[in-house]
């Protein structure tokens, strides 16, 4: 399984070629991204081409042109109350805004990301000092300080924006620092350290890559903030009015609003377009970084709406009736179960391809297979726990005489509580960390009994599953108990309603072997006591040999072979089962070839 053929590998490569094409290509393939890029480039080009495009000097007043309406010859957008050409002033203002955006976000990104990288990567005291400084910086009221410091900064918009950049840099700093602290513990960073790479190389190659996307996104938002703040300050009259900018233009137009209301439109229009394009670009960049998953999620939502009656039997009803006649007297019988998921391109990928299985009362059946074989999907479809976009169909899915197909949600929920129970793989993540063990157990029980009874039952159950001090565990929170204990708690919860069928999905995989042995013992005892049927999903043949009566082997969504445990282990008939059994590391074969040095030293000692 480990080495697919070259063909398979090339297929995968073709499929991922699009992903590799870079985030920018992905941005411009979305309508929103393309629109915002075009608008932004257009506006910036207008600013750059100012000397060519403008008709008049932006500050030259012409008495003849005072409040000239748009379309006046020579005054494309008209002129303001001082007779200055609005078109030329817009072009200059664009340059001012772009420069403000670059300075403001540039300073913030520069300071924030460099110090954030250092703080997050080095940690310890450096982190303490830097975090303190940036916390302090965040307490300053940025806008007021920029206004108050105007005499010192000289009032040019560039220095004001640089100051603004410093004040908003904590945003970038915290972002980068926290991301870096997360990446620092990734195994590939450890591997890079062991490979003897220098810190600078690790930071630039491995760490910066992860934080680059979020930095770009927040830089886009900071750029809009800088543009807005610059215009706002100028509107209020802060900063020199030497260069035409959107702030002073709106202020002028504002005074003139009754005589020439259109004058207010131009600066607002460009300002709005620019900021909207920046924000939308940031958004579409984030979508592009999230990759096809984000798009797929949206796609799936549409699909699942159209296939809401997903559990309808697909075959002829007579077929189904015939099949159900065969399955009588069995605890669980499933015929021709199929589970499929939507692909990105709208086709469906079948992960369970028409399997059938039976479980009798009081029997432990092992469902084995490697990752991707569909064994968990099979178990979850019986439980009704598959995600919404999964499409499940079967001719028959009967549990203790009742069909699990086409039932309304309420009935299924009741059956799940009393007839089927479930033990998960990760005991810890299946307990809510914010509630005590006791309250979580009582919650499940209290629907059928009083609070007090429920508590007594829960305590008895905890004692039954081998917890030495049930009272204390009852009052504990999940983080206070070990993984093995947590699994015992979940088993207690699962057997509380005395289910007829217990489905266990790799119940011991996350546990140590000594704990695994105890949990298997417990499961065996409880199964005998309650006479329930058990479907045990596992990849471990040792577990199968320990506890199962029958085994079903799955591969690629198909049932390869099934039968009595001893038969399957001794005489597997299917080549795949034979390969699996042969891969089990034999107990007899201990490595015998001696290490070269051991040979030598043994000779020496003699």
């Amino acid at each position: 399984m480990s080495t697919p053929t070259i063909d398979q590998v090339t297929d995968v490569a073709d499929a991922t070629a699009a992903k590799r094409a870079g985030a920018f290509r992905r941005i411009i393939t979305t309508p929103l991204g393309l629109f915002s890029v075009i608008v932004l480039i257009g506006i910036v080009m207008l600013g750059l081409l100012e000397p060519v495009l403008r008709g008049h000097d932006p500050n030259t007043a012409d008495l003849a042109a005072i409040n000239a309406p748009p379309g006046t010859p020579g005054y494309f957008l008209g002129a303001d109350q001082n007779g200055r050409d609005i078109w030329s002033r817009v072009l200059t203002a664009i340059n001012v805004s772009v420069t403000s955006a670059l300075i403001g976000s540039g300073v913030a990104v520069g300071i924030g990301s460099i110090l954030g990288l250092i703080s997050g990567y080095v940690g310890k005291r450096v982190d303490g000092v830097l975090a303190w400084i940036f916390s302090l910086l965040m307490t300053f009221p940025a806008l007021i300080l920029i206004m108050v410091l105007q005499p010192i900064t000289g009032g040019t918009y560039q220095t004001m924006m640089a100051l603004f950049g410093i004040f908003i840099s904590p945003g970038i700093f915290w972002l980068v620092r926290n991301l870096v602290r997360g990446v620092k513990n990734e195994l590939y960073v450890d591997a890079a350290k062991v490979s003897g790479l220098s810190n600078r190389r690790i930071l630039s190659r491995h760490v910066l890559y992860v934080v680059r996307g979020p930095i770009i996104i927040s830089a886009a938002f900071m750029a809009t903030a800088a543009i807005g703040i610059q215009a706002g300050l100028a509107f209020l009259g802060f900063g020199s009015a030497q260069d035409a900018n959107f702030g002073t233009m709106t202020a002028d137009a504002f005074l003139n609003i009754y005589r020439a209301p259109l004058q207010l439109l131009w600066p607002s229009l460009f300002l709005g377009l620019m900021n909207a394009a920046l924000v939308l670009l940031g958004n579409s960049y984030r979508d592009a970084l999230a990759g096809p998953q984000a798009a797929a999620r949206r796609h799936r939502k549409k699909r699942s709406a159209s296939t809401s009656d997903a559990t309808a039997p697909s075959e002829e009803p007579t077929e189904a009736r015939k099949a159900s006649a065969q399955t009588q007297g069995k605890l669980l019988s499933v015929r021709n179960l199929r589970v499929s998921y939507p692909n990105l391109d709208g086709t469906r990928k079948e992960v369970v391809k028409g399997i059938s299985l039976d479980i009798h009362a009081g029997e432990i059946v092992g469902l084995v297979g490697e990752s991707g074989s569909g064994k968990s999907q099979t178990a979850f479809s019986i439980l009704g726990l598959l995600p919404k976009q999964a499409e499940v169909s079967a001719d028959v899915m009967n549990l203790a005489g009742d069909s699990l197909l086409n039932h309304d949600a309420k009935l299924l929920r009741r059956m799940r509580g009393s007839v089927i129970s479930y033990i998960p793989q990760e005991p810890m993540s299946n307990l809510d960390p914010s509630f005590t063990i006791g309250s979580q157990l009582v919650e499940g029980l209290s629907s059928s009994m009083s609070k007090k009874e429920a508590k007594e039952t829960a305590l008895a159950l905890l004692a039954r599953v081998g917890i030495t001090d049930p009272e204390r565990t009852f009052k504990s929170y999940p983080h206070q108990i070990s993984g093995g204990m947590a699994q015992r708690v979940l088993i207690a919860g699962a057997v509380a309603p005395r289910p007829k069928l217990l489905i266990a999905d790799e119940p011991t995989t996350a546990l140590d072997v000594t704990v695994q042995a105890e949990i298997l013992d417990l499961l065996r005892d409880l199964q005998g006591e309650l006479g329930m049927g058990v479907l045990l999903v596992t990849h471990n043949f040792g577990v199968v040999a320990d506890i199962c009566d029958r085994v079903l082997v799955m591969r690629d969504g198909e049932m390869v072979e099934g039968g009595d445990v001893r038969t399957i282990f001794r005489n597997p008939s299917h080549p795949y089962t034979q390969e699996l059994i042969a891969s089990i590391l034999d107990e007899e074969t201990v490595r015998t070839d001696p290490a070269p040095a051991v040979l030598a030293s043994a000779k020496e000692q003699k």
Partner: protein
Amino acid sequence: MNPLLQVSNLRLSYPGRGFRWAAPEVLRGISLDIAPGETLGLVGESGSGKTTLGRAVLGLAAPTSGSIVFDGNDITTASQSERRKLARDIQVVFQDPYTSLNPALPIADILSEPLIGQGKKPSEARRSVTALLDQVGLPADSAARYPREFSGGQRQRVAIARALALQPRLIVCDEPVSALDLTTQARVLDLLIDLQRRTGVAYLFITHDLSVVRHISHRIAVMYRGELVETGPTAQVTEAPESDYTRRLVLASPTADPDRQRERREARRMLSLRSKA
């Protein structure tokens, strides 16, 4: 012959929170050694400190006392630049092949990086990538691909190739096959053994799985709660364990044979009854 790696009375505790908090000791005086070309299997349950010991050898965790001697040089408190030189001799293969490879880099970059880190020219480093891929049984055209295009087993092969890039004398293998499927697991183990025979590299093989360790180790060391409870040749430790804990461990790991597993279960019951009595 001198041991390649000698760990003596190593203690390590992670710093506690607050100054009155007693720092929990993860390693409580570990002593072991590995000869050149030898595999020492380090077995223990979660929390036994086996991974921490591996990280201490790699310089990723700082011991509080004791010493680690590699090839005659004390590397317990090696500086960063010394560590960088040590990278030529000590390498690592981690458990999780999904997070131990940077998803942003193509395989060629992942494999040439250690070489470039040791001062080789990028073009030279690139040339050795094909040979490395060949060594671990991956097709040469894998070089341009990204980790996500490979299965777990193939990724682990890439991680092994990265460890081999500098031709180290010791590789710390931290549960390298635990995340893999059964058939893949057997193939990767065979690859590791084959590479050892060809290159004479020594392994510190950390695992919780006795059947895996039996397959690959010359000697086994068993850890329990930060202490070494037993060390010895593989056959001796797994067939006639001396310590109580090892015996429990051996009996608890299930065998893939229903009848023998039943016997083992009975034996385990007897042992636990006896220990309670």
